[in-house]
């Protein structure tokens, strides 16, 4: 069974530029999560989707971050414009359902903002 796929693996941009990350969850997983992991810290949830609807985006900085999951499968996370403090690893995870199912993580995208 294929795991969670993410691309790109690495991205370097200048501040004020835009960037987008892509995630393909495990087949059949209804719930998709985006996390931000700053160096030296644990992941922090940014947004959670159930199928193509947003369940929780309370920790997403909505002035610059946006995310979508239009057909209930793939998802895209965008940052526009990027700031220096956005440098982090962005992890995508998926689970079968909404509640207490185990989350499976992708390899992440390492973003460096210069």
């Amino acid at each position, binding site marked *: 069974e294929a795991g969670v796929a993410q691309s790109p693996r690495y991205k370097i941009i200048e501040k004020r530029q835009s960037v987008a990350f892509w995630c393909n969850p495990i087949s059949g997983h209804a719930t998709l999560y985006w996390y931000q992991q700053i160096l030296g810290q*644990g992941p922090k949830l940014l947004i959670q989707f159930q199928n193509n609807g947003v369940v929780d985006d*309370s920790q997403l900085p909505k002035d610059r971050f946006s995310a979508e999951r239009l057909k209930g499968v793939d998802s895209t996370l965008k940052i526009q414009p990027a700031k220096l403090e956005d440098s982090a690893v962005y992890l995508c995870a998926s689970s079968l359902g*909404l*509640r207490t199912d*185990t989350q*499976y993580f992708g390899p992440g995208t390492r973003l460096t903002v210069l």
Partner: protein
Amino acid sequence: AQTVTQSQPEMSVQEAETVTLSCTYDTSENNYYLFWYKQPPSRQMILVIRQEAYKQQNATENRFSVNFQKAAKSFSLKISDSQLGDTAMYFCAFMTSSGAGSYQLTFGKGTKLSVIP
């Protein structure tokens, strides 16, 4: 708000020895779930073990076991017969309802474990 504390930023263990990683959490909830995740240098986060708070029996997965002390809000991970492949960051995580039917994972800051040959 829920918090997860891992008080050991770094640890090391000799190959084939046993090591215990500590984790404490703070919550007023009664229904929750606890996890240990492993993140090797390649960055893929992998589930090590999971414990439901309503279960008194400690979870085990091969060489990995937990000591779950609900009253003390403690959830430590024991790795027996340590192997070089166990070298990784280990994150303790806590899951409970965040409202509207969803459950949210809260992670600790991690413990960097090095297994020494």
